[in-house]
């Protein structure tokens, strides 16, 4: 192998931390053409590419990277979009280090090929040229309903549209994108990029009905009775969890969902021109250490908080957030209080948060899963002065759609029971994404949407064949 392949991984140009912590513009700036071609040259073009096994939507990774190395970005885009309807988004928010890049052979002796950054480069390049549409099968004249316009629903809709179905997405909010719009901040995923990718779906003929709460204004059985051959439920994990500690309903305690939705979807950082206010105090504690917690912490800094602390019960190693998000948060000045958990939020006489009582933990013996579980240290309680708490300890399944389908099998937590391909207990009803798995990543939801699209196609085709006999 040539020296070139062992060359260092191309770094990602970023806004300076001291500058970016005061603005909402995108942090990572993207590769230049030269950087992209250089990085693509590091790929070994394995005969049996392991990286593809690590990708939930089976992107043709070596193929598109070869096209980048050849400087044929248009071809790279075609190859990329054959499997992935939302590449500009995935290139930005996928946890590549635990997926495709984790499997990269180059990564054994050196740093893995920056697959995610290349994906982003190609998608952005194509967007600037004006995206071309993937090939579409002839219209079948069959309708499918997709519930929820988040990553799972959008992917399912795109794939069904490509197969020739007439797809309608029913979305409860006033815009498409789900967590891509309300949850992930502008500085990590610019909203005009999400909108452009969603526009591509419209060009494929996907219809979108906003302000449509399935479970209230209509329900799954009504949709099936109204000419939809199948229904895909991608309603997500929309219900924020709270800790269940005293003081959690005080003024100044927000769910990460509320804090981020006010900021991102409702553009609270542009208040009062945009009329939805968002509040952040001087000293902020964010409970949890996932991607959403990092987003909340970094958003709090940008809204003007003086101090932002991530409070997490385990150690740095166990933090569920993407490595890059943790690194960016560190660089921007977010402080990490690890092996620490709150036990009580303390209010002032007006019902506002003024402090939080925490307890310190140490890592105990490994449990059945091999993970060392945190154990509280007796007598280690201490008080932290804070005025805002953002709870980011996960979300549960949104119950609105499922409540209206009493015959749909759910598990104890309220998630829909579905097989690998999204088939639920009701024929014709499919489900995927967080509503099935519990809160996970954008890309896993997209993978589920993709598999369901295939299964829906099989189901509808079989049903049509049966009718013909």
């Amino acid at each position, binding site marked *: 192998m040539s020296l070139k392949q062992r060359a260092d991984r191309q770094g990602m140009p970023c806004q300076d931390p001291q500058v970016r912590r005061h603005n909402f513009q995108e942090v990572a700036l993207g590769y230049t053409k030269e950087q992209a071609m250089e990085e693509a040259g590091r790929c070994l073009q394995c005969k049996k590419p392991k990286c593809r096994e690590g990708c939930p939507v089976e992107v043709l990774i070596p193929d598109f990277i070869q096209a980048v190395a050849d400087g044929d970005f248009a071809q790279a885009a075609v190859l990329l979009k054959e499997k992935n309807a939302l590449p500009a988004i995935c290139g930005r928010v996928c946890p590549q280090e635990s997926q495709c890049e984790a499997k990269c052979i180059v990564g054994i002796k050196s740093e893995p090929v920056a697959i995610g950054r290349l994906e982003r480069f190609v998608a952005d390049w194509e967007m600037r040229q004006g995206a071309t549409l993937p090939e579409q099968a002839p219209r079948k004249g069959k309708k499918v309903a997709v519930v929820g316009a988040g990553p799972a629903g959008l992917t399912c809709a795109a794939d069904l549209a490509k197969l020739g179905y007439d797809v309608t997405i029913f979305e*409860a*909010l*006033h815009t498409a994108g789900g967590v891509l719009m309300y949850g992930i901040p502008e500085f990590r995923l610019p909203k005009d990029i999400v909108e452009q990718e969603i526009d591509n779906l419209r060009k494929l003929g996907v219809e979108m009905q906003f302000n449509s*709460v399935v479970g209230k204004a209509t329900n799954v059985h009504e949709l099936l009775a109204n000419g939809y051959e199948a229904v895909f439920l991608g309603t997500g994990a929309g219900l924020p969890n709270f800790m269940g500690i005293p003081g959690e*309903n005080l003024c100044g305690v927000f769910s990460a969902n*509320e804090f981020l939705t006010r900021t991102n979807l409702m553009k609270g950082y*542009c208040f009062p021109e945009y*009329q939805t*206010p968002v509040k952040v105090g001087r000293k902020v504690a964010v409970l949890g250490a996932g991607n959403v917690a990092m987003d909340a912490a970094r958003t709090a800094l940008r809204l003007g908080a003086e101090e932002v602390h991530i409070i997490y019960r385990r150690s740095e190693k166990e933090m569920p957030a993407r490595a890059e998000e943790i690194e960016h948060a560190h660089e921007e000045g977010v402080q990490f209080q690890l092996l620490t958990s709150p036990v009580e939020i303390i209010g002032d006489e007006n019902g506002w948060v003024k402090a939080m009582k925490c307890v310190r933990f140490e890592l105990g013996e490994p449990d059945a899963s091999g993970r060392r579980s945190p154990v509280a240290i007796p007598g280690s309680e201490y008080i932290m002065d804070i005025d805002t708490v953002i709870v980011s300890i996960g979300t549960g399944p949104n119950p609105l759609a499922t409540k209206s389908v009493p015959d749909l099998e759910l598990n104890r937590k309220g998630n829909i029971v579905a097989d690998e391909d999204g088939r639920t207990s009701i024929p014709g009803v499919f489900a995927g994404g967080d509503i099935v798995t519990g809160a996970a990543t954008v890309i896993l939801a997209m993978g589920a949407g993709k598999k369901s699209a295939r299964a829906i196609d099989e189901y509808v085709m079989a049903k049509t064949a049966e009718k013909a006999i």
Partner: protein
Amino acid sequence: MYPIVRKEIFSPTVKLFDIKAPLVAAKAQAGQFFILRADEKGERIPLTIADFDREEGTITAIFQEMGAGTKRLGQLEVGDNILDVVGPLGVPSEIERFDGPVAIVGGGVGIAPIYPIAKALKAAGNEVFAIIGARNKELLFWEEKMASVSSKLIVCTDDGSYGRKGFVTDALKDVYEANSNLNHVWAIGPMPMMRAITNVTRPWGVKTIVSMNPLMMDGTGMCGACRVQVGNETKFACVDGPEFDGHMVDFDLAMKRLSIYKDEEKRALAALEHQHQGGGCGCH
């Protein structure tokens, strides 16, 4: 787009819209609400469904102009479009034929959401005692409509400018004295009023339902802004409510939580004033 097909001005701050929203009207039930967003930059404003007409495909909303959002809303006219309307949301009122009369109490703009509940209770065959009240005559509305869905209607104003002088709580006490077999009470209005009603009915042991109007954003359980402490549990008004057992609700906390964005609301009002004078918002 959801056009405003009728507008009624009850007072300089209390207004009514009939909004064309056929899908919401088709499924709306007493006790439910909807959320509107007037334009691209607007807040999502939750409003209880005051009435609905399934044939016309309209829903009725009555609102009091308080903050910048509702003030802007009040400036819209018939023919103007509302950008987003989503609903019906929340759990409908549990309507049945109760064993004994029921009392419904509407205070201020709370008269609007109590109307469909009274109507449904009456239709279910209940004897309905209705009490409506406001600070003064100017803020009262729908007296005739309320009379049409109740067996008896008491109207009161705090200042005595119309009907009987005094609070709705006093009127309710009188109703109870004459009808100690009262089975249920529904009370909707400002939080201090709902709290006062629950304090009155607690010793009687009469189940008292209140409709909470906390801060809310998406209305589908996603943001948790609408948390209400009910007994030992935290409930989300948007998906678990908006109606709760009033004797279990922590009104103190609920009122404090209503004030979370008080400072920002003042800023927004000031900006609105400034805009009227031709200035920009200075945000860009």
